[in-house]
Every structure is written in C-alpha cells, then in structure tokens.
C-alpha cells in the first residue's frame, strides 16, 4: 500500500509503447559458417500488452530481445517502437537479464541510480531511486553491496534499476529463472501488480509455460532454431490468475504439445 502510494505520487504511470517486429531475421558467424538464429519473425505488440515468449532453449529468444533492446542490429527486417526505428539502446526500453548483473562496486542505491546517472538527471530526480527501491521492498538495503544480497533480492534490485527509468517497454529475459519456487511465485505476483499499475508494455522470455500463462495476455511459441513464430495464443483471463484454472491448464497442455512434450504430460 505504502509502496503504491509513493510510486504514484512520484512518477506518473508511463503508458506503454507499441512494438513492431517486422520480418526480422538474424544470424551469427561462428568460425566462418553462418548460424541462422531468427527466421522471418513478425510480432506486433499493442501498447501495454504483456507478451510471453516461449521456445526451446537456444532457439534465439535472447537474441530477439537484444534486437528489441537495440543492443544488436538484425541482419534483415525492421524493429519499431511507436513507429520509430530501433537503432540503438534507449532507456525507454530496459532489459532485465537472467543474471542480475549488478555492479559489485556500487551499493544497492547506486545500482538503482545507474540509469538516471547515465542520463545525467540523477541530481534532480533522487527521489525516483528511493521510490523504486520502495517498490521492490528493499529500502533498508540501500547501502548494502550486491554480494550481501540473496539471489532473489539481487533480482529485485535489477528490477528496480530497470523500473526507475519508467520504461515504455520492459524486456525481461528469464528474470526469475534461477530463483527458488517460493520467491518466484511472490515475484510473479509483484510483476503483474507493477505492470497493471504502470501500464508499460512487457516482453517476457521464460522457459516455464505455467509462468507465461499466469502472467501474460499473449503467449508466443517459437520453433527450434532458427526461431519462427509457431503459435500466437491469446490468454483472456482476468488477474489475479490461479494456477489451478482449468482454462489455463488446457492452454498449457496445448503449448507443451507445441513444444513437443505432449507424451510426458
């Protein structure tokens, strides 16, 4: 409750941006041979949508996220954020990686402040850092160093570091993948709450079909490498969702089938 109030007092909910991935293909050079990773991927994401990306490991999901972030350029195709071509990283699209990648020489507070500092607006916006830390419930650890945090706490700091920038598109690359199941369920709930409150567009890579179904409006299933869109599934269910929901269970069965796992489930 307190966190909500502070967050709303300090920052206006940033509306999400639309994201268009148009016929994107990508490949890597490995020892002179070309390794195709993405093949003609087209996804159109509405502002404020929560899209989960599912696919076999190594199919190219992280690669796609790096293209969306602007960290790499696609070999073919275009990416647009609200009609504008994505050519380089921009703080309106922030990535939370699977590893928290906190800077070990910076305190928790300084880690969260990184984006504002890099953009040169930290001096006038210090309260945004405090608010972001409040949001993830780590205010009392503001002076701790990363090695003093647990895995879940570190991932929360990474989330705060992303959210402090009020991104229009939040890009999450298996951010909960390494957490224990309890922390994971808690953070899933927090993520949904944050997304509903702030309205940013969310792109979440996960290897967990259940996680995708509990969180997302839309689940996109990729094929094996090179990744192609295999299915685009709408999840019309109100939040908060329940893991036991038979509708979700049926979707999960379909998705696992698409991933080639029907026999075991």
């Amino acid at each position, binding site marked *: 409750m307190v966190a909500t109030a502070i967050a709303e007092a300090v920052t206006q909910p940033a509306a999400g941006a639309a994201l268009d991935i148009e016929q994107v293909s990508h490949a890597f050079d490995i020892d002179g041979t070309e390794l195709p990773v993405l093949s003609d991927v087209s996804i159109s994401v509405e502002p404020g949508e929560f899209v989960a990306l599912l696919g076999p490991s190594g199919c190219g999901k992280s690669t796609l996220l790096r293209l969306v972030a602007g960290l790499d350029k696609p070999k073919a195709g275009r990416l647009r954020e609200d009609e504008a071509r994505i050519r380089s990283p921009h*703080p309106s699209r922030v990535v939370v990686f699977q*590893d928290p990648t906190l800077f070990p*020489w910076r305190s928790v507070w300084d880690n969260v402040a990184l984006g504002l500092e*890099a953009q040169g607006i930290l001096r006038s916006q210090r309260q945004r850092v405090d608010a972001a830390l409040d949001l993830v419930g780590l205010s009392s650890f503001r002076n701790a160093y990363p090695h003093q945090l647990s895995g879940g706490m570190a991932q929360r700091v990474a989330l705060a570091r992303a959210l402090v920038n009020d991104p229009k598109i939040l890009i999450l690359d298996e951010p909960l993948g390494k957490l224990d199941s309890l922390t994971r369920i808690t953070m899933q709930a927090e993520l949904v709450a944050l997304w509903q409150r702030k309205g940013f567009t969310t792109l979440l890579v996960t290897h967990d079909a259940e996680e995708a179904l509990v969180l997302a409006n839309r689940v996109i299933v990729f094929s094996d490498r090179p990744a192609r869109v295999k299915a685009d599934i709408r999840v019309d269910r109100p939040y908060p969702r329940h893991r036991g929901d038979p509708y979700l269970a049926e979707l999960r069965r379909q998705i696992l089938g698409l991933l080639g796992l029907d026999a075991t489930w």
Partner: protein
Amino acid sequence: MSTYSLSDGLASGAPRTSRAPLLSSWVRESGIGVLASIAWITFGFSCLWWEDVGDWSRTHSLGIAAFIIAAIALIGTVGADYLGSAGRGLRQRAAWLVALGAFLTVWEVATAKFAWLPLPFFPPPQSIIEVYTDDLPKLLDSVLASVKLQLGGYLIGATIGFLTGVSIGWSRAVGYWVHPVLRFIGPLPATAWLPIAFFTFPSSWSASTFLIALATGFPVTVLTWSGVASVSNAYYDVARTLGAKPSFLVLKVAIPAALPHVFVGLFMGLGASFAVLVVAEMIGVKAGLGWYLQWAQGWAAYANMYAALIVMSLLCSGAITLLFAIRDRLLVWQKGTVKW
C-alpha cells in the same frame, strides 16, 4: 543436575575455583609483557655493565633508553585494561618486544663489548643511534630528496600508465599502435636506460624521474589494460540499455571494474621503482638515500650505511602500507567477495 540454581554456584563453586584461574589468566595476559620488560632490562644492563671496546658516545643513553622501554612495556601490558586500545596493541606486540630486546642484547654483546663480530663491518646499536643524532641534517636531506624523486616519478609513471592502459583496453586503434611498442620496450629493465637517460636528459634529476616513471608505468599499463579488457560485456550491455554514453562506459564501468587489477599494477610498479630509485641515486643524482649509502661506503662509515638502510626500509614499507590503505578505501566493495 537439573535443579541447578544461581545461589548454588555462588555459595560453593565460585570461591573455591576463583583464585587459580585468576592467577593463570594474569600470567597468560601479562606474562609476555613481564618477559619483554626483562629482555629490555637485560639489554640496558648489557650496555652499561661492560666497557665498550671502541669509542662510542651514546652507550650510556642507549642503556637508559632501554630501561625506559622496559618500564613502558611492563606498565603497558600489566595495566593494559586501563589503557584502552594502546594497551591492547602493546599486549599483542609484546612477543615482538621480547624478541627485539633479546636480539639487541646479543648484538650489543657481540659487537661493542666483546667484538666477536669483526668491528668496522658490524657496528653496535649505539653507533647507529649516534648516526641518527649526529648526522641527522644530512640524513633528513637525503630522505627528502629520495621522497621527492620517488613521489614525482611514481605519480607521473602511474598516471601515464593508467591512462595508457585504459586507452589500449578501450580503443582498438590505440592498441594497434601502442601494444607492439609496449611488447618491445616494456620488458627491458628500466635501469638499462640509465646510461642513455643520463646524457639525453637535461639534468640527472629529470633523467631519474623518467626512469622511475618508466619502471612504474610498464606494470601499471599492462595490468590496467588487462583489467579493462577483462570487464564482462554484460556490464556494458546493462549500462547501454540504461542510456549510458561512451564516456560513462569508460569512467563508470570500465575503470571501476578494472580497479582491482590497477592496484596490482601499482604495487608491482612501486617495487620496481624503488630499485630504480636507489640505482639512479647511486649513479647519477648525488642526493638521496642511495647516494648517502654510496657516500658512506666510500668513507667506510658502516654505521651510516646501516642507519640509512633502516630508514630506507621504513620508507619503502611505509609507502606500501599507504598504498594498501588507499586500496582498502577505494575497494571496500571487494571485502567479502575475495580473500584479502
């Protein structure tokens, strides 16, 4: 057993056992202090008891000083509980005081009293004290000259080395040009440049500064470079998605991440530059502790040599300690991630 109460312990157990532990804990805590005191009293007596075999003016004062140190050791360790951190520190070092007192006694007896060690080459403690009191101005001048030369050369070398290392680590173009030069020239011991440096530079002082900077610069450059080059790309990716410009990536990502390596380079550079400093002073500069050593050797003033050596080692270890203190301040975040 199960119905133990506080009053039982007070009535029967405590009084019977309290005296012996008290004594043994007193011996444990203050025993070494008493030993230290005895060692220094012995040293004092060894100074005053026999006649010197040579002509030294500080024997008497040294004996008195030894007694004073013995008294301080005794009072300091026995009364440590009332002296706060100073008392605790003294107690911790009491064993060293014992060893030092014993060593000085043997030294005194073996040189000044019975001349078991050949005399001009092994001067007694009092003759070294004599150097510190009677030759103080010259010694201080030498210290000052050495510190100035060392500090100037080291700071220049460390700065240039750091900047070069960052540039090579960061920019491919700079690396292309500087790396081969570094490969070719870097491993050459800085002292090999000495003859050339002394006739190409306008003054022996500037030549020595150059040599010290060179000796410092090479390890600092190489380690800064390897530090910057080994920074994980993940840090840059995170910073870039958060809106970081190249200058931010260098100053706030590459350099802090490389800093532990940089300090290894700074330590290595410090060691290398001490060697160059002494050689440069002996051969070229005609000032400083190296030159003082050389001069003392020329006059067969062995006590002066030992005195200068002691000062030199104090200065060098002081410099290392200072660098450690700076590192500990700048790299507090490493505490708990690596073993120090």
